[in-house]
């Protein structure tokens, strides 16, 4: 004779995060990355030393300065510059494969407004670089 009884299962713990962590560990293991990471962690002092050997404050400051310069770029200007560089690369490749031009031919190029615009831009850029170097304390 079995009298009917009730039972309420306890609320299960939320294991979603640990499940996901287990999955990540399994994936890292299967890919071999876990072994690589383990090696990296175990050799951490040596790796850090090696890194410091090639990195100094000057390098870091240079990277930061260059990054800052890139952030200030106007994308439209940059795109025009990039397009110009792309074309320059193509035209230069063509010019290299052609017979070398004589002094007169080179001089005649100065009549071409695009050539003059390019030289102006290059000289202006060089002047700006030079000015910046001069201003450096």
């Amino acid at each position, binding site marked *: 004779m*079995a*009298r009917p*009884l009730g*039972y*309420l299962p306890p609320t*299960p713990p939320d294991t*979603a995060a640990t499940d996901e962590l287990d999955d990540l560990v399994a994936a890292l293991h299967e890919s071999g990355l876990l072994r690589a990471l383990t090696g990296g962690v175990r050799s951490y002092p040596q790796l850090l030393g090696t890194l410091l050997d090639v990195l100094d404050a000057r390098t870091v400051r240079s990277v930061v300065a260059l990054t800052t310069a890139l952030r200030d770029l106007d994308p439209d200007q940059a795109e025009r510059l990039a397009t110009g560089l792309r074309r320059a690369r193509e035209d230069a490749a063509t010019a290299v494969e052609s017979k070398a031009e004589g002094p007169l031919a080179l001089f005649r190029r100065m009549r071409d407004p695009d050539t003059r615009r390019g030289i102006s831009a290059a000289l202006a850029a060089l002047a700006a670089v030079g000015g910046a170097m001069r201003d450096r304390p």
Partner: protein
Amino acid sequence: MTSTEPADVDRRAAFRPLSEDAAADPPREVTVSVDGKPVTAVEGRPVLEALTTPPGEPDTFPSVCYHPALGPLQTCDACLVEVDGELVRSCATYAEEGLALDTEGTGGQAASAREEAAQRLVRKHVLYCTICDHNDGACTLKKGIESANLEFERIGHQPKPYEPDVSHAFYRYDPDQCILCGRCVEACQDVQVTETLSIDWSSDDPRVLWDGGVPAGESSCVSCGHCVTVCPCNALMEVTMLGRAGLMTDWPEQTREPAIAMVKDVEPTTGYEPLYLLSDLEATARMAATDTTKTVCTYCGVGCSFDVLTRGREILKIQPQVEGPANSISTCVKGKFGWDHVNADDRLTHPLVRDGDRFRETTWEEALDVVARRLRGIVDEHGSDAIGVIGSSKATNEESYLTQKLARQVIGTHNVDNCSRYCQAPATQGLWRTVGYGGDSGSISDLERASLVIMVGTNTADSHPVIASRLRRAQKLNGQVHVVADLRRHTMAQRADHFLKPAPGTDLVWLSAVARCVLDEGWADEAFLKERVSGLDDYRASLAPYTLEYAEERTGIAADTLRDLARTIADADSVAACWAMGVTQHSMGSDTSTAISNLLLVTGNYGRPGTGAYPLRGHNNVQGCSDYGTINSFYPGYQPVTDADVAQKFAQAWSLPEPMKLEAGLDNHGMIDAVHEGSLKGLVVVGEEISLVDANAAYVQEALEQLDFLVVSELFFSHTCRYADVILPAVSSLEKDGTFTNTERRIQRLNQAMDPLPGTRPDWQILQGIAERLGHVWGYTHPRQVIDEIAGLTPMFAGVTWDRLEGYDSLQWPVAEDGTDTPLLYEESFHFDDGLARLHPLEFREPTDAVDDEYPLHVNNGRVLEHFHEGNFTMRSEGLSRIAPDTYVEMSPRTAAEYGGPGSRGGLRTGDWVRLTSRRGSLEARVLLSDEVADGEVYVPMQTGAINRLTSNETDPDSHTPAYKELAARIECVDGPGEDERPGRRRKPDRDGSPLPRHHHRYGSPTPQLGVRVEEKWARPDYRTPPQPDPEGATS
């Protein structure tokens, strides 16, 4: 609805079954020329399929709106090619020998046209694939525009003036991502045929509309999920996917928006190529962290198969595939969205043993030891037949085989049965009598092919929704005639060409009268009767009482109606008959099933495509459960226990000292009687909610209290668990391997999609554990070993192997050793020694539990779309319960007015609480007024398991199936219920308002039409055929 528009006529002419169609002509390969190179194509198929690999999916050639299950929609223009100098859509150009395609076109116009089409697609859709939940590496839209060589946006995205629709429980629609391809509309209108979705092409800003323009969650949408499944992008997304599918798709909006804006600003410089690459990388990483597993639905007997996408235990979505043999792209709300039970908080995770007045959590070792010790004790004291084993129609075929093996080999009894006793046994009996096999005589595709389908006592739209969709599609697109006989004017009845409302329990009368009329009028298939059928003379003589006039008198259906029906059925080229619980759960269930089969024989409707008998099986594996031997009178494959040779074969295979006795054991109902009589002492129940689903629940519960020992394996602490001594926590269908057999005898593999919840085990391991402790070491390590053992012992399954069921492959029994299966039975002969079908004489008996002055209302009961059986799974789904939160007592306004009685304030209203009392017991529920139920009758959905407090012990004498549908009751007003006593249920007593929310789909207003009406798009003033650019500001 019959349209004579040329495009609509074409659509009808192209009709073909969507489910696997063995009767289809084999594909004929032809060679077409693509840019001068020979390419193999399938004759008559859209030539686009030959340009893409796999067919219909873009890879190197764009295809966006085309879907192989939907056909050419022609809305996206992305597949334009040139044929004979003319631009044509390759999705609407059909392959024929010698067809020559030029994909570049004159002056490159075809390629330009495709690129222009792609530009228009991204005009309507923001490409942020890397942080899009749809970016699974196979996004149709992304691949489509990529293969159209879209590199830079020329038009740019033009937002629509609509907010995302988040009103639906299961999916979200984002108009701003919608490309207006119309796949969802086509699927809703002409595959599902609920006809909710449309696109108003006359709108200034077209979008997909629900019921012409209401929120999706308040429309006639039945949440079948077709629209979401076929959406080629992220416009329609499962709620479970949103923010969950991708590696970075859970970014908050304040991060997401700027990120998208930044990428859009970069795109004019970079073009799309690096973005395509980036999203491909993300998709690769995402899918590496996502599992895709093919499984089979755990709900009804249609046998839908689909991929389930999971990440650990998280279920991301259900994605049906065209290859699914039963369902293709189709699902119902339960199969697509109803999986919350798998991760429900109240899953059992420890075995429980009864310890005084409580259940104590314990180890598997102790629990199985207790089971073995108690069962052995009963056998030693009272004999093997003092124990019964009840299998589960939810379990796999292999588990069914092991259930009966435990009963027969280990315990030594034929007392083993399953829930088909409650539902399908009468249909099986009717078919055994007349044609030989107890299963559907054809496939779902035969139902699609039939000229006329008779549906008797089947609420197909709610109980077998995907089959209902197939039938509605055949009716809409192919002129299939529907004859529906039912007590209720349910969805299929509302759409029927002929609706019959017989008096309760009188189907046999009108069926026999129609059969007699066919014979008397000379409309029978005389050749078929002469060559393939025996017993005509006796049968004809038995029909003498069934005149049309008698039928009219007894059933209430006019004699002229029945005569016209007889003519219609006799004239139809091919007739298939479906029936379900409205026939079988009667005291004449077997005889009425027989009457249906008799009518099919008289009219020659067996053994040809589009014909046959289809008793629609209710549970996912109720067919397989009996097929594999969990039945008291047969070993697996319907090998009789009374056959000495069979008994010898199994005794030898199972190393029994001697063959088992040649006498059937007790069935479910008999076991309960035997407990009351004191001869049955112990019961093993595999996942069956017997205390609620057997008729006369109080009688069953009293029996369970009297048992010496009861062990139950279950996912949850079910009502039956209350009576158990040991409870063993089992797994869901997503947590195990195995096979299911659907209603069309189709065996399909389900594959484990996730590990079992810690502490739980699949039933095949549980059964093996019990057997081992009782001295029988089975040693199975995987269900495939069980399949091999079955094949060696069972001619019907001789060719069934695990490997032959790989992927979406399936086999329909009987399966020969070489793997040849049988999609259509009886093509050559019937399953009797002489090969002839047998007409079976019948005699009508009056139904039991008739109405009288004290119990004046007839009570009908059954399922609703959102819930399955007693609701142990589906009531744990928040979304399903939001649509259908509770049971109810549905009645007509006239019944409500007449039977309101004292306290009903002049008649019952929707929302009033009532008590329904039968001669056995009562239940309380709210009233729902509707026109679906006839006067003097009420309908009570069974999802809370309460109905069997009312049902009786009366059974069909031929099958011992309870007469659930023969039930009289009285009704009275009450104040309302107490607490819902069933833990874990989401149902909460709600004392006010309608039992169905106002947003329920039955209150929606569908907008029927054929397809997406692309002609209306083409007629828009802002549409130009590519490569011509659309005028500025175009929105379609």
